[in-house]
């Protein structure tokens, strides 16, 4: 053998080795690789699309870029709802663990900055399976910056911030039911925020892109698809914040004065366009804290026995405060509906201004077992049409309704938007105005067969003075506006313009004429009759709504809540008043309804005594604001409040003459010869005939006085009572007779301690006993 064998090297491989090597070559060099190639072919070629889709599914993230929510402006471009940028703060516990970050440091830092519970945050940092655990939502810039600083200073990757927007309502409670609010996810939940949610929210931009496993961007921009979002439209409302403020102010005052049990509502409408100028509902709530309920409701919730009960009470209280009564409540309108009956009767020629109606206290109607009674025992006697309306005489209106006839009455109700005839004569009917607000309820009417039955006229008779059907306050004011604006039924609306973010108009709402219901001539007659309901100080049941110097028309309403009487045994009422002004050329209509006044308030429960003065007070504020000039005739001027002149420096004789000329009375303090001071100060407006104080070289006292209860006193009585204390009185109500008109509400509550020279504003109602009735 060879050398190598001798050296013990063993020579080359033997044949068996070579054979076995060839076998290995076949196995390891060829067969194994073929197996792998077959496997790869299966994965990459045959199943390619399946895996690719799954891979793309996990790699692509859709990121929505949040568009700015549009601003809501009132008609004068005052912002009512605005959005601001805030931050959501969240943890990425998975990364906290990955980078070994100090959990206690994070919990301590965040709990201090955000005022949250330390243990709660510490627990959240430990949820290591998660990449996203929310700590705080909608954190405002100042706190968010602090969190950002804390994050940077400590190099924390597990503490994250993301941009969000928060809705702010600069006026808090004002017009809360109209505006509505948005939820945590910025979706509109109530009011305009809900109805116009898609317009306000705009369209979210969409970025579809491949991301890494953490959901952040890849290092290069491949595979990205971007569709830009659009910011939401700004909305400009027909609502006027100032009018809304006046309406809310007086409505709240009324709820307090009359101890209203079940809330109240009011609507102010532009008579000619149907635009809503104001809409209020009591109770209101702060839009910025829409989940918080009133203190009284909260106190009840705190007393709840169980958590479930508390949660239920909270939910009920929230639902109650969020309810827009002016839009969502339906009620029997009562006598305010006589405007509708009057309008159709005049339009149809069924009645004439010269017609005479006799009221003997009640009237029998076919189909009714008992006669329909007028609100006034003994009846109104003989009246012409205007007087029948002034008296709000039920008997006269039953006769007017019967003259119109059921079919025609029903047709007009449809024309005024109270019902939609469906063709099924046995179906109870309903309708809505279609206003651009969320939550509108529909009316409920008897079916055509019931209402128009020739054998039973009781439905028609009751409907003639506004009973046995229910409608919404909004439907009523819309229809009454048509009655006085020349006969045009306008669709009510709230949003008059949508604006692009750059301020240009994207959409302009034109007033929508639904139909001409009555003629201009008929409308003029209705206006003139209704003006005399308010304007006639002797016969008008609406006289308490009068405002000196203004021509106001309107109608009272007092409706019994029948269903509730059955439950509680006590008669409960909704009192209301609908007015419009100026009566010769109406601009604004105002409806106020007070749900269930307490009969212990000292004021007689009726629309004329309770709701009419509220409308009057509103008109007294709103009409000057709208630029309507008051026109005072001679008689009125004398009974108006007077402006106190400056008497200082005058001698005793000069002062006496000046006081008399100003229509005031006076008493003196001091022994000097010249006036050195006076109460009240020059320039304020107070009741005529008030006894003022003139100081002749004497010092006015700095004593403070307690305001007495004025309710029920006549205006003159109240004036003299107050002036005794050195406190003075004024009123927006027209003063026709200071001796008989009675104070129904006062601006400074009895018991309040005030300084000398303070002014108490009061509301006057007619003290005439003939005014006391449910009309």
């Amino acid at each position, binding site marked *: 053998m060879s050398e190598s064998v001798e050296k013990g090297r063993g020579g080359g491989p033997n044949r068996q*080795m070579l054979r076995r*090597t060839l076998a290995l*070559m076949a196995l*390891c*060099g060829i067969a194994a690789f073929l197996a792998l*190639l077959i496997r790869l072919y299966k994965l*990459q070629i045959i199943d390619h699309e399946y895996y690719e889709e799954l891979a*793309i599914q996990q*790699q692509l993230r859709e990121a929505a870029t949040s568009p700015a929510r549009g601003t809501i402006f009132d008609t004068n471009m005052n912002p009512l709802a605005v959005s601001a940028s805030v931050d959501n703060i969240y943890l990425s516990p998975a990364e906290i663990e990955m980078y070994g970050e100090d959990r206690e440091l994070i919990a301590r830092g965040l709990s201090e900055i955000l005022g949250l519970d330390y243990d709660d945050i510490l627990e959240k940092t430990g949820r290591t399976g998660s990449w996203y655990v929310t700590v705080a939502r909608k954190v405002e810039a100042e706190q968010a910056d602090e969190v950002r600083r804390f994050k940077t200073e400590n190099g924390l990757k597990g503490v994250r911030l993301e941009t969000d927007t928060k809705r702010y309502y600069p006026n808090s409670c004002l017009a809360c039911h109209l505006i509505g609010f948005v939820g945590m996810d910025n979706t509109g939940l109530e009011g305009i925020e809900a109805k116009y949610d898609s317009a306000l929210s705009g369209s979210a931009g969409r970025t579809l892109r491949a991301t890494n*496993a953490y959901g952040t961007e890849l290092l290069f921009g491949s595979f990205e698809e971007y569709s830009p979002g659009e910011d939401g439209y700004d909305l400009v409302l027909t609502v006027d914040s100032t009018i809304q403020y006046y309406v809310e102010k007086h409505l709240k005052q009324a709820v307090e004065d009359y101890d209203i049990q079940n809330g109240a509502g009011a609507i102010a409408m532009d008579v000619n366009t149907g635009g809503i100028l104001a809409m209020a509902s009591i109770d209101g709530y702060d839009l910025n804290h829409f989940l918080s309920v009133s203190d009284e409701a909260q106190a009840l919730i705190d007393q709840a026995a169980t958590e479930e009960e508390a949660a239920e009470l909270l939910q009920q209280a929230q639902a109650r405060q969020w309810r827009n009564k002016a839009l969502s409540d339906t009620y029997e309108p009562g006598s305010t509906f006589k405007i509708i009956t009057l309008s159709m009767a005049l339009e149809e020629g069924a009645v004439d201004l010269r017609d005479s109606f006799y009221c003997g206290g009640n009237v029998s109607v076919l189909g009714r077992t008992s006669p329909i009674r007028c609100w006034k025992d003994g009846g109104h006697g003989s009246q012409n049409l205007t007087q029948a309306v002034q008296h709000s005489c039920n008997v006269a209106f039953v006769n007017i309704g019967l003259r119109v006839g059921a079919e025609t009455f029903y047709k007009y109700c449809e024309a005024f938007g109270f019902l939609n005839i469906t063709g099924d004569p046995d179906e109870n009917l309903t309708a809505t105005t279609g206003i651009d607000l969320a939550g509108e309820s529909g009316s409920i009417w008897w079916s055509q067969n019931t209402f128009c039955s020739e054998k039973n006229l009781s439905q028609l008779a009751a409907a003639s003075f506004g009973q046995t059907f229910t409608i919404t306050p909004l439907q009523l004011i819309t229809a009454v506006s048509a009655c006085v604006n020349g006969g045009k039924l306008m669709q009510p609306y709230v949003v008059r313009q949508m604006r692009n973010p750059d301020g240009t108009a994207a959409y302009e709402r034109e007033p929508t004429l639904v139909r001409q219901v009555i003629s201009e001539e008929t409308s003029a007659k209705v206006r003139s009759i209704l003006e005399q309901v308010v304007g006639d100080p002797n016969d008008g049941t609406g006289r308490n709504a009068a405002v000196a110097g203004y021509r106001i028309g309107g109608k009272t309403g007092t409706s019994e809540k029948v269903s509730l009487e059955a439950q509680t045994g006590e008669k409960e009422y909704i009192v209301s008043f609908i007015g419009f002004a100026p009566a010769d050329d109406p601009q604004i209509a105002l409806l106020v309804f007070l749900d269930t006044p307490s009969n212990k308030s000292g004021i007689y429960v009726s629309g004329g005594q309770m709701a009419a003065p509220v409308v009057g007070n509103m008109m007294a504020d709103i009409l000057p604001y709208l630029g309507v000039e008051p026109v005072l005739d001679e008689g009125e001027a004398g009974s108006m409040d007077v402006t106190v002149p400056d008497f200082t420096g005058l001698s005793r004789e000069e002062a006496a003459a000046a006081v008399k000329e100003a229509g005031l009375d006076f008493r003196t303090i001091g022994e000097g010869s010249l006036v050195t001071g006076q109460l009240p100060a020059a320039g304020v407006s107070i009741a005529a005939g008030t006894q003022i104080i003139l100081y002749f070289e004497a010092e006015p006292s700095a004593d403070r006085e307690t305001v007495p209860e004025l309710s029920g006193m006549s205006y003159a009585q109240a004036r003299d009572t107050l002036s005794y204390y050195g406190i003075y009185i004024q009123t927006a109500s027209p003063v026709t007779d200071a001796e008989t008109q009675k104070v129904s509400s006062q601006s400074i509550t009895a018991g309040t301690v005030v300084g000398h020279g303070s002014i108490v504003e009061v509301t006057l109602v007619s003290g005439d006993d003939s005014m006391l009735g449910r009309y």
Partner: protein
Amino acid sequence: MRYDSARLTGFSDTAVKERKAGFDTPFFLLVLILLTMGVVMVLSASFARAYYDPGNITGGNAAYYFVRQLLFALLGTGVMLLASKLPMGFYRRYSFPFLAFALVLLMLVPFVGVKVNGSRRWLGVGGMTLQPSELAKLAVILSFSVLICKMRGRMKTFRYGILPFAAILCAIVGLLVLEPHFSASIIIIAIGGVMLFLGGVRLGWFIGAAAAAGGALAVLLAFFPYASSRITTWRDPFSSSSDEGYQIVQSLYSIGSGGLSGLGLGGSRQKFLYLPEEHNDFIFAVACEELGFIGAVLILTLFALLILRGYWIALHCRDRYDFLVCAGISTLLAIQVFLNVAVVTNLVPCTGISLPFFSYGGTALLIQLGEMGIILSASRTILTEK
């Protein structure tokens, strides 16, 4: 007999001239091509993880892994060339001392080893880490080759053909089980078995060993829930795609979404932290995603050619020891490549095996290139057929 005559002529003067002429160029070039591709793939696969640095290792330097791998590749090429210069007699002489060295290191691991994911497999050496199991694989090839040469003619007996080999294997595998290191144990046993197969052991022993292995596996599956859950995950990785099956599912997404021509070099999306170990054990999945079926076939073909060329060199060795070492190293390479690709394609249950020349890892690369150098050294003794 033709081989024998070729061997005989090989001892002429021309053989000496050939030896001076140099090593086997095709084998060398195949190694360089694969190494280059591997380093480029490390750059592509690793830069996302290096950039995002979820493990706080790289400091956000996207080229971190690439630069290190490139340095080791250059160093490794030097090691390969040096190893090719050393005569085969050198390896033969130091085969058993090397085995002893590897055993000592393996014994050290349980005491001073670095623990990663619950296993102690690494030794820290001056800022670098070393897996002694990598050395043990080579030690088994080298020492078995020497022993087989010593036992020539007695390989068919149990006492000489099985016992000493089994003793060495048991020592090494015993130490690996302590770590524990399942995949290295499998490879060591496999490569030991192949050496014995080449050495001429009766095939009956292999049948017996296969039966024993099957029995052991059955016991393992029956009594160790960990092992059986591996099997469940293997059969249906999507059933646990968020935990045990996550890695393999992500790997299948990568490979599958590559399609025929791939997303282009650097275009992998799965490497953006979806696919774990994307620059280590699962680098082939990224290669499949970026280079497609075409690229995968190319890489595997290059590996196959390299392995076949390794066997070809072995077949042409005039010395039995040289032959055994070359065939052993080629088989080791084949086992590693096959198991790695089989794991990432879910052809076999998931276990941690790196892909030679591709997977990130400095010392492993040095050892692999050293092994290639040994084959090149052996190739210098071959008389080419020109």
